[in-house]
């Protein structure tokens, strides 16, 4: 991928005849111009060279950029395995014929798909193939002086002239010192055969910025890879009053990088003391959450003093570069199940999953494998602010203002010993029989005596739970630095223009003094300010020339040799 403006091509003839010393048309140099090159030569090396030229041409880079944009589209339209696996399952259920095909092409995991990787790796290869030679070219151009001044400065995009009372070489010397004062790089003729002139060039940082931008993008890619190899991401659901230690086994889900082992985890532990959520009580956005606070206690390493922390959204906990985020919350109704003989076989808070984030109606499952005479299972709905609508319970508000549960009971075999792993949020009722036709609603403290001598279940109350994301990403800081460098490079390349100013002096027709012509061109004048800069520079040159006359009629000529400062 080449520059926003293709690298400059300077054929020696263009440099001397002065019409187009920069290649103003900004066409691609023939050497890298994709598509315009001749057909592939027969030899194997020739093939490779041809392929490489095609790959690193701007045209290919453009096509790859389009493919990258186009390839990202399905990642936003279809549910993705990485961000929402449940939605992918739903899609498979809803479109049983189509989904396997989409899956075949990796469209449910676009950003990890081989074809997507192929696009961006080709793009970055193209970028490297373009940027590396340009870096060498830039290093080269930093050592070579500006080109010789063209003969016909009037033919440049910007030009002007002024008369001088100084002889030509002195007039040029004055101009050179003015341009040197503006930190232009100068070049003067080595001999006087080619006339009296000075070439000046400025703005090399533009190309530096452009290269920096592209290299920094490469750095971002490497940083992402770094995070993928050495980072990890884990999820943990925590009910009020419980805690966990940061070990692999403690997590509900653990996605380690390829080079991460369990031993790399920071040895901290966290206990959730309480969680509170507040919601807007009135207005158009009634029920919209206003604040979440998870009050936790943590110890950084075993044996350390415990610290308290108020974990909030946008306010993560940082323990030795491992960060803990509050990413979700919900209700965990507490149930107590007692057998007909009075034995307590279940007494715990059971996290329910919010099915509707607006009202926080939550679904959950209670499995009681130790119940007698048969195992018991319940499908439940937790309703934070219950209102009765006809025969069903609805939630009017997400806060627990009038909590209630509605349960459907099952007795039989939970199937937990079959060896097939089960989700704690799903009940397999194939070997169970429903206890009552209608769901049974309970308020806190109420007890439902189950039919058939299956004991009783009490809705004791509720607790809240939070879900935490625990992440470690060593690529984060490098990615940020590279991102900022890319931005800096972008600004340099857009704000700075590479421009050249030429001054030529010839003896005046009258024989006294000289006529000075100035010409200028900006190769890349993105912001369009060169016109004004050239105008003020011309005025300054004329003024300096006029001022030089006054003190000394015969100013001593300054250094006539080529300067490459």
């Amino acid at each position, binding site marked *: 991928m080449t520059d926003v403006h293709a690298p400059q091509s300077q054929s020696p003839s263009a440099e001397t005849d002065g019409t187009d010393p920069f290649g103003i048309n900004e066409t691609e140099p023939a050497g890298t111009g994709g598509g315009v090159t001749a057909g592939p030569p027969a030899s194997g090396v020739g093939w490779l060279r041809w392929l490489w030229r095609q790959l690193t041409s701007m045209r290919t880079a453009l096509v790859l950029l389009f493919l990258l944009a186009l390839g990202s589209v399905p990642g936003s339209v279809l549910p993705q395995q*990485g961000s929402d696996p449940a939605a992918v399952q739903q899609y498979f259920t809803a479109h049983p014929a189509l989904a396997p095909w989409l899956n075949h092409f990796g469209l449910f995991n676009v950003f990890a798909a081989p074809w997507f990787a192929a696009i961006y790796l080709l793009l970055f290869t193209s970028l490297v193939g373009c940027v590396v030679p340009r870096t060498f070219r830039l290093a080269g151009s930093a050592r070579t002086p500006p080109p010789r001044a063209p003969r016909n400065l009037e033919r440049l995009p910007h030009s002007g002239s002024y008369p001088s009372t100084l002889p030509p070489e002195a007039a040029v010397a004055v101009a050179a010192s003015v341009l040197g004062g503006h930190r232009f790089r100068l070049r003067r003729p080595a001999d006087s055969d080619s006339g009296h002139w000075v070439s000046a060039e400025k703005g090399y940082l533009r190309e530096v910025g452009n290269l920096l931008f592209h290299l920094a993008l490469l750095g971002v890619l490497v940083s992402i890879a770094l995070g993928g190899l050495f980072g990890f991401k884990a999820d943990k659901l925590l009910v009020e009053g419980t805690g966990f230690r940061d070990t692999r086994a403690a997590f509900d889900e653990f996605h380690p990088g390829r080079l991460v082992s369990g031993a790399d985890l920071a040895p901290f532990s966290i206990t959730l003391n309480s969680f509170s959520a507040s919601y807007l009580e009135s207005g158009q956005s009634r029920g919209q959450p206003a604040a979440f606070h998870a009050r936790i206690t943590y110890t950084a390493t075993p044996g350390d003093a415990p610290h308290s922390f108020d974990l909030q959204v946008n306010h993560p906990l940082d323990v030795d570069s491992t960060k803990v985020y509050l990413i979700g919350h919900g209700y965990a109704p507490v149930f107590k199940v007692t057998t007909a003989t009075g034995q307590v076989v279940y007494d715990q808070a059971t996290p329910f999953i919010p099915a509707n984030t607006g009202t926080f109606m939550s679904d959950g499952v209670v499995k009681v494998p130790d119940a007698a005479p048969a195992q018991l299972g319940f499908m439940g709905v937790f309703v934070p602010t219950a209102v009765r609508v006809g025969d069903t319970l609805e939630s009017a508000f997400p806060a627990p203002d009038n909590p209630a549960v509605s349960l459907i009971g099952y007795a039989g075999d939970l199937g937990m010993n079959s060896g097939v792993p089960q989700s704690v949020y799903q009940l397999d009722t194939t070997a169970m029989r429903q206890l009552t036709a209608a769901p049974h609603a309970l308020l806190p403290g109420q007890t439902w005596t189950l039919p058939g001598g299956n004991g009783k279940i009490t809705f004791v109350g509720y607790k809240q739970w939070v879900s935490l994301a625990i992440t470690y990403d060593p690529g984060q800081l490098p990615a*940020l630095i590279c991102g900022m460098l890319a*931005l800096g490079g972008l600004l340099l390349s857009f704000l700075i223009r590479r421009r050249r100013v030429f001054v030529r002096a010839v003896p005046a027709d009258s024989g006294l003094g000289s006529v000075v012509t100035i010409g200028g061109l900006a190769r890349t004048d993105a912001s369009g300010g060169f016109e004004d800069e050239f105008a003020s520079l011309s005025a300054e040159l004329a003024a300096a020339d006029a001022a030089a006359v006054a003190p000394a009629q015969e100013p001593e000529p300054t250094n006539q040799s080529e300067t490459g400062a």
Partner: protein
Amino acid sequence: MTVNLGLAQVSSDFLIATLMIYSLAVLAFAGDFAFGRPRRAAAGAAAAIANGKRAAELATVGAAGAVGTAGAAGPGAAGPGAADSGAASVDGASGGPSVPDAAATPGGGRAVALPARQVPALAAAWQAGPWVRIALTFSVVGILAHLVAVVTRGFAVHRAPWGNMYEFVTALTCVAAMFFLYVMIRYRAWALGVFVMGAVVAALGLAETVIYTAAGPLVPALQSYWLSIHVTAMTLATGIFFVAAVLGILYLVAERYRARVAAGKAQPGNGLLVRIPGSAQLDKLTYRTVIFGFPIWTFGVIAGAIWADQAWGRYWGWDPVETWAFITWVLYAAYLHARATAGWRGRAAHYINLLGFTSLTFNMIVVQVFITGMHSYAGVS
């Protein structure tokens, strides 16, 4: 913190006023379009406007009847104020009085011909005629009212006033109007006013009628100072890209006209098209607008990544909105590259520019409102 309903009302009222003042500005721009002074001859429209400024600057001064050495382009192509521009340049630039001998002695028909600095932008605006003056006045007053509306909304809700779609559109049209005013004055592109300000009025009118959302506090995920950084950058960039898109459409229209004239299919000097700048100048303006917006968009994406890391525990997660911000970025990058690639510059590049804005708009309207993701904050029901 409770919402200050009084201030929220003030904000709404000012926005209505803004809408009306902008409409008047559009009318005045249209008046200039219809009745203003013709600015240039129709023939060679594109070339004339591209070289026009330069020709004006190179207009020769000094010895009577002397022809400037570089004044190749005829003065006929120069815009109004060419004479003023030339005159202004003598005093300021050439320092004529200090080199009387020099001017006299070389003689031989040689004359001082220094390129002049441009007429100050505001003076040029003044010279552009009463319609432009009226339109600019309305624009400035409208922008002030718009600013008041945005700022009071911010004070009413005690936060940066771009927390939902309605507020976002309100703020971005304000940016577009301000940025366009700058572009218009800087590049003396009065003829574009009717198009850009017209588009601003349309967008603001839609915001006011379709997606109006009462002032309210934000969900916890948005309660962060990154809101003011990330969304501000995105608002600025969107406003600027908005201007670039309008310029791009005008370019395509002007370019089509130019091509038809060149092919002999259309009369030069025909109708409205003569009055908008030539395609070459529109091409430059579009490019300058995009390179102004692109770094801001880049910064906005980086700031968004930092915020995402704070709020969600990852800096990039291919959330639908993130994905489309990425697609938009890639498309504008493609535009910048296309402009430097043979066979792609011109029309093709401009189509990419418009594709970029389409993706941006799609992200703003369709993705944020209809596709569920972590960025579903639009508040549009």
